[in-house]
């Protein structure tokens, strides 16, 4: 499954998921001001519909625009951001390589751990700031470049996994923002995990 990324293009397309009208408008603005294309939807099921993961024809987004990043609120009626994350990251999902960021107004450590465990790139505290978006954008762009085999060994904040034989399928680092619960750095043995269950710290 080839990942269609145009290395030269700096414009990310972000899918924002939030049931709050206010928050959707704000995140939309934050992303647009950061030169990102935005599609904002109000629920997890709408997001899956847009991504073509709702059981309908497998498509990249019905208007043809590839999604480079998904930012979703955690607490939503119906499907939570966590449930949406799980669906996207399923082994069978064609879109599991898309980085997913969770946003929440509640700093519940168990919740944060659970999300990272399930493959979220980052957990952002709400209200989300422009600096969060800018940081996220540059991190995602670096990650995109990696997919094309141009290893960016120096720029990563975390150590590269020395045990992986092939280039990482997705950006495996997440910026250690102040939002994450402090945890000890991974011991060498903990990196010997199947890629699909790699713990992101």
């Amino acid at each position, binding site marked *: 499954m080839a990942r269609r990324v145009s290395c030269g293009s700096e414009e990310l397309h972000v899918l924002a998921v939030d049931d*709050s*009208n*206010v*928050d959707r*408008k*704000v995140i939309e*603005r*934050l992303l647009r*001001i950061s030169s990102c294309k935005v599609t904002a939807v109000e629920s997890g099921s709408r997001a899956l519909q847009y991504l073509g993961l709702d059981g309908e024809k497998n498509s990249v987004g019905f208007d043809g625009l590839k999604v480079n990043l998904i930012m979703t609120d955690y*607490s939503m*009626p119906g499907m939570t951001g966590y449930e949406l994350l799980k669906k996207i990251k399923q082994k069978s999902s064609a879109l599991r390589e898309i980085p997913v960021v969770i946003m929440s*107004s509640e700093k519940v450590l168990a919740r944060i751990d659970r999300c990272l465990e399930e493959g979220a790139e980052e957990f952002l505290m*709400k*209200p989300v*700031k*422009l600096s969060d978006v800018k940081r996220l954008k540059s991190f995602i762009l670096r990650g995109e470049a990696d997919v094309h085999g141009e290893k960016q060994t120096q720029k990563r904040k975390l150590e590269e996994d020395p045990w992986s034989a092939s280039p990482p399928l997705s950006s495996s680092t997440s910026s250690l923002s102040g939002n994450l619960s402090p945890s000890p750095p991974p011991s060498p043995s903990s990196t010997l995990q199947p890629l699909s269950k790699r713990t992101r710290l």
Partner: protein
Amino acid sequence: MEVGQLQRKFVDYTASLFCEGFLDEQFTQLQQLQDESNPDFVVEVVSLFFEDTEKLLNDLTRALDQQSVDFKKVDAHVHQLKGSSSSIGAQRVRNACIAFRNFCEEQNTDACSKCLLQVKQEYSLVKNKLDTLFRLEQQIVEAGGAVPMVG
């Protein structure tokens, strides 16, 4: 009133809203997202907040009026209101919501009703303040001036 006076009035008024805790840093963040290409951004976001809040307050009133109060539902509404007030920097509304949620947890109907009153009051106050602020902005623009960046 001429432009300079209006602008000073605007600056002072804005400062007072921050001083008195009606608005916090998040409101400043929103102002910084406004520019010539999106000159009404703050008004638009705040209008959404007003719309959503009025609906939530109605829902809350109804929910607390029930014979058997569904505290999970009440808490869900308050959580939403806490979120949106936080997103626009309406600090006092947000704080009132935090207190409210504690009583939801305790399933204390009386205390919740009092909290609802408190939230309604804080909302009404901040709505008036923001309406006044936006009116001032409009007057400055109509008088041919630029709205000063505060904070």
